[in-house]
């Protein structure tokens, strides 16, 4: 009766891949916890967390919150960059708008030099 719950096999497989960050991620199964509440795939976020050598364990809630935070961050930086584009009376967001936003907004200081 292994076919009782479609998708559960894939979810379990994903949970089992210990530290193998190089494994290509299967498309996030919709049955994964929080999958419908996050637009960014939790598996990718987990891979980023795993990349930190100081992290030993991470709870699923922490992964989920990080994914949601990344979404909010993308919205925020896009809006700030759009303000810069508007000042230049442009309707297309350019790379320099982003650079300007990073320079103008204190919270984005950690990005300086990481996007080159």
């Amino acid at each position: 009766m292994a076919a009782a719950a479609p998708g559960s096999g894939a979810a379990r497989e994903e949970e089992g891949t210990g530290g193998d960050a190089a494994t290509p991620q299967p498309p996030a199964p919709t049955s994964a916890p929080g999958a419908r509440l996050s637009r960014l795939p939790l598996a990718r976020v987990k891979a980023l967390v795993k990349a930190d050598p100081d992290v030993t364990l991470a709870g699923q809630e922490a992964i989920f919150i990080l994914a949601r935070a990344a979404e909010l961050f993308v919205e925020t930086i896009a809006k700030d960059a759009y303000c810069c584009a508007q000042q230049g009376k442009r309707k297309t967001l350019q790379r320099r708008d982003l650079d300007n936003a990073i320079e103008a907004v204190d919270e984005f200081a950690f990005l300086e030099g990481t996007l080159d």
Partner: protein
Amino acid sequence: AERPEDLNLPNAVITRIIKEALPDGVNISKEARSAISRAASVFVLYATSCANNFAMKGKRKTLNASDVLSAMEEMEFQRFVTPLKEALEAYRREQKGKKEASEQKKKDKDKKTDSEEQDKSRDEDNDEDEERLEEEEQNEEEEVDN
């Protein structure tokens, strides 16, 4: 550590999030798109590192949701804290709802079998579902092998 370039977030999703945040008719150049995507990866790495410091200060091995919320404050993204707490509540409700739905399903089936004593195979399916759920709960604190 690895370079953020090796740890990209899916471009299609990033683009959708950007588009939904901006007014209609705004275009995003390819360079701006990939820069925002990379910035999001750097953001997650930075937030992870900050959050992990809070976990270590608390002498906990497991990074949890409150560590991430503390990290947001430290990173001066205080305005994220309220929406993130709401998202966390929704997440917990979903988890709880799943558990209750599965328990309710079992109860319903028990009632049925009480009255009719039928369909053994479906009953077995049900047991399997519950087993899986317990397994997922055990996985909540997951080893990340570093």
